[in-house]
């Protein structure tokens, strides 16, 4: 699945941010990790300066599927609004914005699942908010990709991701 060329969105990830995401995903393996992306917005281009690791507080807070297991952070993640609020204050104080979030897929490709789509509805479909997915295989960080929720939340589309 290549990057979609029909939209102008693009994400650039600093080497620091990419490293933070990769190490976080390895540290929580085989559980999923989650975090926020802080940086700047310039039109449709987002620049991530810093990745902020957040605790995966999944405990069945929202209903994603009939088969939800409130105990399993191996295949679920929840970004607590309190953590988002703290990160948002930190970002604003530093003159930055939260331009997206990341989570990991242990032993699974860096493509969004139906569960990810349901759980992303809070950001609204059709915005430039980035969903970065870091794949981890056998405990080692593998491919990383960035996605946007489009078509009123009906599906994800890949966006170009550049490492700088």
């Amino acid at each position, binding site marked *: 699945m290549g990057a979609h060329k029909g939209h102008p969105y693009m994400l650039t990830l600093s080497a620091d941010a990419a490293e933070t995401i990769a190490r976080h995903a390895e540290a929580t393996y085989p559980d*999923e990790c*989650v975090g926020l992306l802080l940086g700047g*917005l310039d039109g449709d281009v987002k620049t991530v300066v810093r990745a902020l690791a957040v605790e995966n507080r*999944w405990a069945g*807070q*929202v209903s*994603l*599927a009939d*088969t939800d297991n409130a105990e399993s952070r191996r*295949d*679920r*993640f*929840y*970004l607590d*609004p*309190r953590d*988002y*609020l703290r990160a*948002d204050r930190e970002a*604003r104080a530093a003159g930055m*914005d*939260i*331009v997206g*979030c990341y*989570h990991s*897929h*242990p032993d*699974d490709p860096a493509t*969004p*699942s*139906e*569960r*990810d789509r*349901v*759980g*992303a*509805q*809070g*950001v*609204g479909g059709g*915005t*430039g*908010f980035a969903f970065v997915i870091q794949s981890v295989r056998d405990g080692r960080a593998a491919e990383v990709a960035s996605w946007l929720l489009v078509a009123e939340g009906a599906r994800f589309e890949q966006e170009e991701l550049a490492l700088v």
Partner: protein
Amino acid sequence: MATITIPTALRQYADGSASVALEADTVGALLRGLVEQHPTLGKHLFSEQGKLRSFVNIYVGDEDIRYLEGEETPVAGGDVVSIIPAIAGGMYV
């Protein structure tokens, strides 16, 4: 005036504003005032039945309005009300 902060993902429906200052007595009135100014924000915050969407969280200061008085939660001048998306997901069915 209370200030309401708008998360990055929803700013495009608010003419790019990061926050809006409004005169209102309750959280509900504040949100309705915001939607009046930026009508396209409405469907991202409220369901067709007019209820706050489950993935939308509203905080007054550090407190979730679900644990206060909901939309009836009073707001005072200087309060900061934050709209915060809940984000969740996971790999398998």
